């Protein structure tokens, strides 16, 4: 992660650090929902009890960050504009669905989720918006609660998620905030875009998926992961595989993010 560390320093210099800087402002229009504490059983869960890992309560934006919101961020932080962002922090397809540095254009409806953003850019936005990215466990916890929408049936959730993963990508994304709501009132967790998490590279799938479920997976997996907890949870496999294929500077046409906050200042899951 040498290049990652270097990028972090560059990014920190550009934005005045990850703490809310001079241009910082709350993101109006986004509600934050309290996600109640719970337990998460990661798909790669060697050494984790069957009951999973405890995750404390936290707050999560009710929907992903939109193009319009990200436009305000880059307007306030010129260093994150498309032509100025450092190549160590974003790859060459950063914000490529926008028409220009400060122009959204026909492929980026204002209310659609912003995509083609790197982990560094997403993290910088989250700090500017007085929050942070959710952790993997936080995100997985929030994204597992659909009892109200789907009945107490993890299979139905799994199928619904698989349906999205198995469908082709749309050229122009629909607006954020209209997807299925979780029990905590968080929308669009499934079926709109993939989402960055703060520790996306903490659990690594090597790309050699058959090895990941074998005994030598520990060689690849920084998170100490080995045997898959539930080999039939294809949806979770795919999320972990995607995260494992990423680097901090990568930007994808299907990858956005949302902002999280601690439930109370100083009492977070991190």
């Amino acid at each position, binding site marked *: 992660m040498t290049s990652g560390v270097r990028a972090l320093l560059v990014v920190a210099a550009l934005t005045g650090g990850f703490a809310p800087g001079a241009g910082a402002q709350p993101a109006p229009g986004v509600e934050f929902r309290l996600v109640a504490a719970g337990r998460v059983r990661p798909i790669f869960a060697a050494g984790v009890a069957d009951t999973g890992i405890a995750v404390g309560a936290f707050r999560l934006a009710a929907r992903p960050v939109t193009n319009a919101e990200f436009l305000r961020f880059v307007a306030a932080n010129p260093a994150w504009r498309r032509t100025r962002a450092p190549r160590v922090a974003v*790859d060459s*397809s950063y914000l490529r669905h926008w028409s220009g540095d400060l122009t959204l254009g026909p492929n980026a409806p204002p209310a659609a989720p912003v995509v083609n953003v790197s982990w560094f850019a997403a993290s910088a936005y989250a700090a500017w918006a007085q929050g942070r990215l959710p952790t993997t466990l936080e995100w997985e916890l929030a994204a597992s609660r659909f009892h109200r929408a789907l009945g107490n049936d993890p299979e139905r959730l*799994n*199928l619904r998620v*698989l*349906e999205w*993963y*198995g*469908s*082709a*990508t749309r*050229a122009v994304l629909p607006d954020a905030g209209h997807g299925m709501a979780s029990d905590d009132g968080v929308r669009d967790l499934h079926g709109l875009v*993939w989402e960055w998490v703060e520790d996306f590279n903490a659990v690594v*799938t*090597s*790309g*050699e*998926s*058959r*090895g*990941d479920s074998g005994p030598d997976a520990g060689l690849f997996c920084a998170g100490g992961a080995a045997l898959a907890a539930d*080999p*039939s949870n*294809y949806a979770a*496999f*795919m999320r*972990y*595989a*995607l995260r*494992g*294929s*990423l*680097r901090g500077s*990568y*930007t*994808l*046409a*299907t*990858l956005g993010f949302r902002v999280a906050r601690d439930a109370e200042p100083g009492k977070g899951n991190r």
Partner: protein
Amino acid sequence: MSGSTPRPTAWRRLPLLAALAAVPAYVACSPGGEGDPLADRPSGPLPVETLVVASAPAVPKPITRRSPAKLIVNLETHEVRKRLADGVEYTFWTFGGSVPGPMLRIRAGDEVEFHLNNHPSSKMPHNIDLHAVTGPGGGAASSFTAPGHSSVFSFAALNPGLYVYHCATAPVGMHIANGMYGLILVEPKDGLPKVDREFYVMQSEFYTTGRFGQAGLQPFSMEKALHEDPEYVVFNGSVGALVGDNALKARVGETLRLYVGNGGPNLVSSFHVIGEIFDHVYTEGGTVANQRNVQTTLVPAGGSAIVDMKLEVPGTFILVDHSIFRAFNKGALGMLKVEGADNKVVYSGKQNDLVYLPEGGAVQAVPENGAAPERELPREELIARGKQVFTANCTACHQLEAQGVPGAFPPLAGSDFLMANKERAIGVVMHGLTGEVTVLGKKYNGVMPMLQLTDGDIAAVLSYVRTNFGNKASDIVSLAEVRKVRAAAAAKPGAGVR
């Protein structure tokens, strides 16, 4: 080994020693039995070529080079919505935009610089495991690629043969089930025996939530995949990909080679060409034509076979997975259309079409072999047998209580039509009945089929019906009476019906 295993005696060790002595010879000629595959590399850099690939069913041209090269391969992973069957669409995950992916053809000893490019619109990261690669994951460990990115790795082709390549990203089954596979042929250094025509055929199966043929965009069914119960088993990625205008085409007199792969993900193929015999089979895609005169060859999931055949006669030859319900009901069917002159010695075509009459002109029920000759039965026995015949043959229309169905099937219960004429009744059961009849004052105009009952059955069932359901016949119907009606009908065709 457990501690209780007996120690081998000295004589038992001898074969082991012999085997050990043979090892150096084996090593010297491995892999591929052709010596060191990298032995003929020049001291300087290899000539560089961009590899030309082919889309199924086309096969890249045979390699004429007789020295190694460095080949640049560009392969794109792309998630596309396409036709799976008429009216049925599926979101395929592909190599090169189609299923199967393109066929690659290289030569043993070549060096390949492989670029795997994941299209920016992909939802998934992908990688590639080429079974032709010697190394971790067959390349998968080095080619894990996020959407909109590109990975590069290099390998040397050590072993000649016909190999499957596929995506191995988690969950690997779903990546294969969605269409991510193809074939790479590594030619032996001296090439394969020359043939006139070559095709690339790859079998695979699809697991859709909807039943076979159910219209619309069909999502992947994980449940059916886990149960290995596909809705579709197809050649070259869709139902009908090798049928009609898309059939494989060849000429009489040509030698034909099929490079057959099986992407799976689950099923093993019993590959067969109806009306042809494989003159040579390179079983499991190896480089030795180790079997001759084969009707059906197994193609393992994640494996291949090479089959050669001489085309002697024209016609349409059907490619199937001879696990035959897959061909008939799930799509595993292709066509090879061979044009050219007939060879009437090899295959005459239909020479005549004759009427086949086993026993003269009349249709007769032939007693089964070993059945006892029929005889007159005592009244009780006759009526008991009649009840069985009635239940088995008559109740579907005339109903359990012989009450019939108003407007459709006339009643037998209390039937004036039945009781009025015994000979007519025998004739109706024997030959069936067509046209209008009046039963208990109601008109019926339908068809009663000829039931192919034996004369004994006819006697029994009429005896039963005429003495039950309110019918009050005092006499039974004898076998002799039935035989008399049949004899009269044979002498005078048309008699007995009405």
